[in-house]
């Protein structure tokens, strides 16, 4: 139990996927203009990450290892994740057109998102059990959502402030992301994970 908690806290705060591991920067910058959209994206990522972890774990331990083809890990994972995200996209488009519209082109981006692939690979590297892996995935996704929502809040506020023209848009977003990442350094050493 304690182990799982440590994994969770570590993935959310200490080794935050976006702000400490710098994975998934593209949606972090792209889908963080509005808090609502960020929440939607966060939920989509949480879902994808969790499902991807489950599937890749099974692929790893029931397909790749038994057949001795671990060297195909990357390509197999990409294949699985890509088709999975396609599936999610179709479902969302049908079930919630509003959410689909606000997530826009970034849903397909989860397909090739290094955060998801990175998570799957890290899971295997760290020799996590199935339960640990899922916990790690949820933690990572929550961390991603946390960073995304915090950042979206900041950007919404920036919209109302008098940022000099040359810094408007992505420039100031990158600076803010840097400062946010600095603040997250405070969690360093909180738990060894």
């Amino acid at each position, binding site marked *: 139990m304690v182990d799982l908690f440590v994994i969770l806290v570590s993935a959310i705060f200490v080794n935050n996927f976006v702000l400490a591991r710098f994975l998934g920067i593209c949606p972090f910058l792209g889908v963080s203009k509005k808090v609502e959209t960020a929440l939607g994206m966060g939920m989509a990522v949480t879902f994808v990450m969790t499902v991807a972890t489950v599937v890749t774990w099974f692929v790893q331990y029931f*397909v*790749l290892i038994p*057949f001795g083809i671990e060297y195909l890990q990357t*390509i*197999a994972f990409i294949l*699985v994740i*890509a*088709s999975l995200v396609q599936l999610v996209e*179709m479902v969302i488009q049908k079930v919630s057109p509003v959410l689909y519209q606000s997530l826009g082109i970034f849903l397909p981006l989860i397909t090739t998102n290094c955060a998801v692939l990175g998570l799957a690979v890290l899971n295997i590297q760290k020799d996590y059990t199935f339960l640990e892996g899922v916990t790690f995935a949820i933690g990572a996704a929550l961390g991603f959502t946390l960073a995304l929502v915090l950042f979206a809040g900041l950007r919404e506020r920036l919209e109302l402030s008098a940022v000099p023209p040359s810094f408007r848009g992505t420039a100031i977003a990158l600076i803010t992301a840097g400062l946010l990442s600095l603040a997250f350094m405070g969690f360093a050493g909180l738990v060894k994970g």
Partner: protein
Amino acid sequence: MLAAILSLGCIGLVAAIALGFAAKKFAVEVDPRELAVLEVLPGANCGACGFPGCAGYAKALVAGKIDLNQCPPGGAELVTQLANILGVEASAAAPEVAVVLCQGDNHRAQLKYRYLGLEDCTAAQKIADGPKSCPGGCLGLGSCQRACPFNAIEITPEGLAVISREKCTGCRKCISVCPRQTIRMTPLESTVHVLCNSHDKGALVRKYCQIGCIGCHICQKTVPQAYRVENFLAEVVYEEHLVAMEAIDKCPTKCIRDFATGYPDGSSLLPSTDPEKSDAA
């Protein structure tokens, strides 16, 4: 090797089946014409059409609810493209630009009081009808400038809005925010305008503005077909703009202006040097 190929192939197959199934089960109907229309629209989402963004306009177009010429930034070219996609006859709109019908900046026009507060024309207009004595004159607080999606409007240091004819796309955003209807849409080909918006009697106009139209009819007497005077205010009959310049020198208050020869004083907008554009005719 065989195991690798087989297992990857199997994974691929499973994924393909799942996707194929989902494509059937969760298919969403999108009118292909809508996508095609969206493709050709400028994508500025300026809202000039009155719909929320280009996607909204595309939807309305495909539904056949409106005319094809509601997108000023797209211009005539877009109208023909849209007509091709939607299979309708095109009715091209003549290109238009917005013009500020006022030259009464803070030096030339009288102020009735000193205004304190929000830098916004609509807000100032609510306080005793705006600080300018002239009821139609430009307040120069820059509401149109902030509304312009194309940065085509500047406010001169003397407090007058000036619209660049090169940058203006005719989107009408400025018109909707101007509380005094000082900005008008005019045909791009006509460069001559009576730059005044006051319907007050000549004597009153003289009192509060050095450069306002006093309704003296001299322009109309000089070129009868090119000017119309109503309620003490002259107006160019734009169909006859070619001969309208003849009256420019005759105007006693110099409120008729030919933009082909440059912008009002104080504006940093350079005189139009492109011969194509200045004699667009």
